[in-house]
């Protein structure tokens, strides 16, 4: 089943999306991640998230679904994820607009982005989701492209380019 994260990764990097879907997630050696993992495991603190069928919403108001991202490194990917949420909600009869908040803004000069789904866009997206599902069921991941700047920060870097 598709999830918001997978849609995000599909837009960001297809190879990452495939690997993640097949649970080839890499150990991240950065200290933050390790501390985070240990703390999380030890405390199991429950975050205030709204979870339904493969989607976890940061915030749901009368008008908006809000997705909060730490950085604005890949806005298109985050927006794709948000669109996915909107469609899942819509299928349940919940109509909302999307709102993306980035905590750190480096590349963009605004930190809040909004989006509204049109009927036409919905049709396109449904088709796209089918092709993502097909893609995920393929036997092998797409080979890594030439090293891109985003690869240097990616947890899969060593795996991809070894």
């Amino acid at each position, binding site marked *: 089943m598709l999830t918001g994260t997978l849609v995000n990764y599909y837009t960001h990097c297809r190879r990452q999306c495939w690997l993640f879907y097949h649970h*080839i997630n890499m150990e991240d050696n950065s200290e933050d991640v*390790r501390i985070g993992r240990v703390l999380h*495991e*030890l405390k199991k603190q429950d975050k205030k998230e709204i979870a339904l069928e493969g989607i976890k919403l940061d915030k749901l108001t009368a008008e908006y679904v809000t997705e909060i991202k730490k950085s604005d490194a890949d806005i298109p990917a985050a927006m794709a994820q948000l669109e996915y949420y909107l469609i899942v909600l819509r299928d349940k009869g919940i109509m909302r607009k999307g709102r993306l908040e980035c905590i750190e803004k480096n590349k963009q000069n605004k930190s809040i982005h909004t989006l509204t789904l049109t009927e036409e866009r919905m049709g396109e997206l449904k088709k796209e989701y089918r092709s993502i599902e097909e893609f995920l069921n393929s036997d092998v991941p797409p080979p890594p492209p030439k090293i891109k700047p985003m690869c240097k920060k990616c947890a899969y870097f*060593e795996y991809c380019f*070894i």
Partner: protein
Amino acid sequence: MNSDTRYIFSTGELFQKDFSIVFRKEDGNIYFPVKDTRELYCFNEVTLSTKLMQLLAKAGIVVHFFGYYENYIGTFYPKEYLLSGRLTVAQALAYGNNRLTVAKPIVCGTAKNIHFVLYHYYRHGKSDLKEFLDWLHKSVPKLVDDTGDIKQLLRIEGAIWAGFYQTFREILPESFAMNKRVKRPPDNPINALISFGNTLLYTKTITEIYHTHLNQTISFLHEPAERRFSLSLDLSEVFKPILVYRTIFDCVNNRKITVEKHFNKSLNYALLNDAGRKTFIEAFDERLNQTFEHNTLKRRISFKQAIRLDGYKLIKYILEGKKFVPFCMEDKK
């Protein structure tokens, strides 16, 4: 020592306090913060509680236990946090269908890395090594290529190591040169060093494989039934010459370790004593944490990371069919 490995040599008790592992021994407490501990070695009698094991399991800290006589007792292997059903199935299938495709490069890689180690001595005047070096370089790849059978491949591997041991007469002082490799129990100083070094590397490799999705029991060169962590035997093979043997040669030839001072006299010098064990581990760890510029990644990595990267290469072969070529000292990749 820049390392996330903690070695415990004295007797004592391990327990948890806040986010630290505490080792209480006779002369005081030592604190190991959880966040930068990945691996623990216990070389003495150590008591630990279930509660601590819970912490170790959650934090993914691997613990290796040794008896007082350097004998490896076993490993506390925390619950896996990296698991991919797809990969596990594919790894088993690869064993069934393509065992030699993985096993052969391991044998060739071992020969290459032995060649690398010995070439250094050849260049420094040990001209008698030439014949063996040529054999490694020219004959071994052909022999490996031609074989279609795992037993024969293992015989080639055996011949490589036997030939390597023969060269010790050339490169080690007489007190350490050996006639015959005796494993369990080792019967002289050099066998003691080799056994201890190989076991250390084996356990290090277990820890590195823990941080990948590979299944530790499905091996290719070695029989999967050989040990509980038989994949570690496979992946550590090519690293033995460059990590274990170079450490031994360095310690012995530079007199950091001597028969009189660092071996147990009452056991006929067939085991290291406390001082010997510590010296060896220190030298071994230093080598393991040494970094170099990786040829394809264009990043500095340590030899320890190189072991994990070989795990990634194996995953890539299993999952994506990319040719498996284990670490080679000459091209540093």
